[in-house]
């Protein structure tokens, strides 16, 4: 899979937050086979040096880092956060979040497009956290985004793909744009479904980090993603309303 010209060997992208411990995080990443890890920037107190410890941890994971602008509600805040993240993580990649609603963590579509344009012009390669809205997707592509990250459901809910119709429409509308279903996934079956529908990858965090056994759940997602992609390429059958016997009718013994 190519994202902004970079070959990524895994269709599972994993967040680094909320794990019970750094060692559980590392084990979850090992078993997930994830190719990309999301990270953030947060305030640092002088003597704390928490940033350096975390930096060493994620560097050792051997994955590509995708910093985010999580929690930003304005364009200015998101742009400044992206610029700080670029310097800290030494990457032009940014997962752009401009949050518009406190309860649903729904993206602010207007701020998202504006920030995506500013960041693209500043040399960033933007991964916008968006909805399944096709008009918004079109605007984001116009603003210079080459990858889209539609939500499955609101962040942290684990509800899965709540608008199958909308996601299917989005996928069909822009068949050549790499798309990552980001946020709202709770179960491997939901990730498999996203891949079966033709999405290129999934990004999740809470579903693994908050599982009773994060490492096992990470592996479960890895297998689901692989199964989903395989099924997509295998050209699934069309569903139908009426039953159709799978065992041949001809040749059945006539017994009354």
């Amino acid at each position, binding site marked *: 899979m190519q994202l902004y010209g970079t070959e990524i060997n895994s269709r599972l992208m994993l*967040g*680094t*937050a*909320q*794990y019970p411990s750094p060692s559980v995080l590392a084990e979850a990443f090992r078993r997930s086979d994830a190719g990309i890890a*999301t*990270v*953030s*920037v*947060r*305030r*640092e*107190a*002088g*003597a704390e*040096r*928490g*940033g*350096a410890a*975390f*930096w060493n941890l*994620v560097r050792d994971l051997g994955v590509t880092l995708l*910093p*985010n602008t*999580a929690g930003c509600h304005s364009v*200015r*805040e998101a742009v*400044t956060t992206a*610029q*700080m*993240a670029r*310097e*800290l*993580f030494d990457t032009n990649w940014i997962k752009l979040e401009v949050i518009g609603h406190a309860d649903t963590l729904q993206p602010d579509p207007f701020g998202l497009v504006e920030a995506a344009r500013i960041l693209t012009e500043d040399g960033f390669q933007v991964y916008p956290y968006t909805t399944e809205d096709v008009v918004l997707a079109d605007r984001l592509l116009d603003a210079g985004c080459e990858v889209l990250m539609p939500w499955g459901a609101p*962040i942290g809910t684990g509800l899965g793909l709540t608008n199958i119709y909308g996601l299917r429409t989005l996928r069909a509308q822009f068949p050549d744009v790499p798309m990552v279903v980001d946020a709202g996934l709770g179960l491997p079956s939901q990730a498999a479904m996203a891949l079966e529908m033709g999405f290129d990858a999934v990004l999740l*965090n*809470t579903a693994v980090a908050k599982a009773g056994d994060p490492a096992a759940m990470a592996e479960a997602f890895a297998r689901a993603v692989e199964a989903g992609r395989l099924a997509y390429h295998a050209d699934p059958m069309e569903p139908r309303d009426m039953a159709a016997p799978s065992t041949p009718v001809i040749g059945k013994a006539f017994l009354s």
Partner: protein
Amino acid sequence: MMIEINGTMTEVRADTLAGVLDELGHGDGKVATAVNETFVPAAARGQTALAPGDRVEIVAPRQGG
């Protein structure tokens, strides 16, 4: 002078961003900075003068989703 560092009013002696970072123990720390909501690259910290009441943000790599 009093400036705001990560949301807390703080008395500092230095008058440049680089000086304040040293004073607070960040020195060679892995941090990025913004002053009054505008990003300041590491290379510009030495020439970035601070005035009383300026808002300084100092951030580091952290867990994210």
